[in-house]
């Protein structure tokens, strides 16, 4: 089963970059695909990669990430200014970001205006299926501990 978790921008806008990245990465490590409103800052994207690299172990092999956002090339001066002011006041809520665990999302193909998500369906008995099962059981045991 594939789980998508929507993260509205309002949920993370008050967080510092580290906490924001931590929140997103925790969801991904629970084998869920994050659908985030808006996009991370370029520096936060590299921070996410660094945190991901530090988290890689037997059960977690990394992430697939993709951001899609509206083209702003042909905006007129005043529209551009209005948009920039909006970004300064309420943050960059344009576009959508998808982050998924590499064990579930094999590849995200991106055209400027289209995303294609290729997921992994492990064959029964294969090494990938065993790893997938191990990740599932570890994430569910984590949840049980949390409930307790």
């Amino acid at each position, binding site marked *: 089963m594939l789980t998508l978790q929507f993260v509205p921008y309002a949920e993370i806008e008050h967080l510092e970059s580290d906490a924001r990245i931590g929140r997103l990465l925790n969801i991904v490590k629970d084998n869920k695909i994050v659908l985030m409103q808006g996009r991370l*800052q*370029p*520096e936060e*994207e*590299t921070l996410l*990669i*660094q945190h*991901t*690299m*530090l988290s*890689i172990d037997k059960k977690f*092999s*990394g*992430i*697939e*990430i*993709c*951001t899609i956002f509206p083209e702003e090339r042909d905006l007129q001066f005043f529209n551009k200014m209005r948009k920039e002011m909006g970004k*300064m006041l309420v943050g960059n809520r344009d576009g959508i970001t998808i982050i998924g665990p*590499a064990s579930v999302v094999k590849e*995200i*193909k*991106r*055209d*400027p205006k289209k995303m294609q998500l290729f997921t992994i369906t492990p064959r029964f008995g294969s*090494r990938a299926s065993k790893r997938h099962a191990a990740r599932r059981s570890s994430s569910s045991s984590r949840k049980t501990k949390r409930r307790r």
Partner: protein
Amino acid sequence: MIRFIRNFIKRILNDLFATKGNLKIGLYGPPNSGKTTLANRISKDWLGEKMGAVSKIPHETREVQIKEKIVIQHKSKELTFNLIDTPGIATKIDYEDFMKYKISAKAAKQRAKEATRGVIEAIRWLDDMDCVLVVLDSTLNPFSQVNITIIGNLAARDIPVLIVGNKTDLRKANVKKIENAFPQYDVVGISAEKGKNMEEFYESLFRVIKGR
């Protein structure tokens, strides 16, 4: 706004204290795009020696490598710089992927461990660069998030960028696609392995450095 002020101060300090020989040019890009092959080509063209090992297995370069004081000349102009070859930036590293290249599980795990450290190190070096050559495999789709993240970060840090579409000797190569993906940047198509179009590459490099 804070980023703009920070970059402005950094630029002024760099201009005040930088000497000609301290210019740092970094090679960035995803794994297996040919960064080290290009580093070797530049190093061989101007110093007569190679810089690092290349391989078909991804993440061959797992540590930052530096070649100091490379002096290149082009049309009576001269440029002295330190060339910094960085490990490929990736969002996932699975040791099982290395085992497809007939590497033992133990060696694959070690390679994966070193590769994760390499990615972190490459990102840390971003702030130190004066100019970056983003090396992309021109046979692949340029709209990958890693490419967008690298280029977005360089733009945010106000670092001059030259995009190099490598492997143009291959049938599937499409430099036009890279140009369409990043229309606001200089793009040059080369084959670092075969030494194809290196003249235009050096010319573009001079242009980007001059516009810095």
